[in-house]
């Protein structure tokens, strides 16, 4: 059993790696959690995590620069149906396209665009940075047992753009920052979080444990 964390030169893989290792230990599962730039490792992996920080276009370029990675991701996720978790820009990359700085094609797994946050209250700060609560739109195993809503646990966000899916069915949870922002999207074996579970203390580790146990 193994989890492949895709390394394409985006920052802060170390934290995602350590948090997944911790989550695996907590559920008493001897999983091999592996950072990898080798598409072959995706073939062997049972689950796949795509992290990402920075700009959409930059991350897309980084992913394309790893020979054969996008092809193997498509195969593992769309054909083989392996559980997939995208984090932050890794989640945004699941979209049809990103509109940060320039128009950039995404992986096209979640129909929708990645657009700038435009809060209805101009005094609200961008980036949306810090701890916010989640409003669940649709039950999902990823959030099972996690208290949500205004009195629930908080997740750590840092982003200026967010993924707007074309269909409300793809929305699993939202957060509020001068209007609803996408917090969790997903369909079938795919799920993505705009916030950083690896930086979200209790909520984050609970979510990662859920992901490691998830059988879509």
């Amino acid at each position, binding site marked *: 059993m193994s989890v492949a964390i895709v390394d394409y030169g985006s*920052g802060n893989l170390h*934290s995602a790696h*350590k948090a997944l290792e911790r989550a695996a230990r907590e559920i008493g599962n001897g999983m091999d959690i592996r950072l990898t730039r080798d598409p072959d490792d995706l073939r062997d992996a049972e689950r796949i995590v795509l992290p990402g920080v*920075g700009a959409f276009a930059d991350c897309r370029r980084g992913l394309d620069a790893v020979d054969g990675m996008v092809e193997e991701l498509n195969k593992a996720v769309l054909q083989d149906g392996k559980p997939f978790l995208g984090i932050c820009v890794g989640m945004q990359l699941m979209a049809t396209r990103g509109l940060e700085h320039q128009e950039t094609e995404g992986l096209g797994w979640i129909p929708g665009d990645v657009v700038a946050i435009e809060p209805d209250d101009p005094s609200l*700060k961008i980036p949306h940075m810090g*701890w916010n609560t989640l409003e669940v739109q649709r039950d999902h195993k990823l959030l099972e047992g996690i208290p949500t809503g205004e009195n629930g646990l908080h997740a750590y966000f840092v982003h200026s753009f967010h993924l707007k899916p074309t269909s409300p069915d793809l929305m699993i949870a939202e957060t509020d920052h001068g209007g609803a922002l996408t917090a969790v999207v997903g369909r079938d074996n795919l799920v993505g979080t705009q916030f950083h579970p690896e930086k979200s*203390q209790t909520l984050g580790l609970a979510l990662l444990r859920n992901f490691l146990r998830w059988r879509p």
Partner: protein
Amino acid sequence: MLKSRVIPCLDVKDGRVVKGVNFVDLRDAGDPVESAIAYDSAGADELCFLDITASHEKRGTILDVVRRTAEACFMPLTVGGGVRSLEDIRQLLLAGADKISINSAAVADRKIVSDGAEKFGSQCIVVAIDAKNVAPDEWEIFTHGGRNSTGIDAVDYAKDVVARGAGEILLTSMDRDGTGKGFDIDLTRAISDAVHVPVIASGGVGTLDHLVEGVRDGHAAAVLAASIFHFGTYTIAEAKTHMRRAGLHVRNPAEADR
């Protein structure tokens, strides 16, 4: 709703905490990682390490501290102090820092802000501003711990670094730092209202009311303090409870208690 953040800041020199961290059950108060773990479980919203290591040869020690912290604490970590180049930023990010605070290097050449934002994303570029009040409603940037004047207006500078891609401003009043008299609220509000990115208020916290003032009157998105937490004057939980009673929105520190 987005919550106001409470951020303890640790001064680290040669891999050791400089000011005492006064927690019960802390085996080694001088180890930044032990202190980070204690703040993590106490419900701090973020952690800030300021590396004040003087010698260039010992600069590597902070990378080890960051790496070990990121292994044990699943919370956001900002690291600053002596960051001079894109390579410094890259190494700290790879070690597990989430945000990098740049101070003198940005004053010397603002290009590091645009280059850093372009290469690593605005979300991880924090510009630290040390400002002194020089005339009514006028503040100037100082470097080298407040010793060197630059002639640069703090509000203009803040606007410029944000335009260049800074994702956050860490604002310290050199007049108030270490005094315990509270933030320079006029300065904090002047900068917060001038930029669209979050501003962290710093310098001068002596009481819990000061934290409230920073957010309520200074319009800061986050408040940073060192001594009141390190010396055990107040806990993070006391700070949060006080802020909540004052009508501010904060994250419950018990969330981190696992």
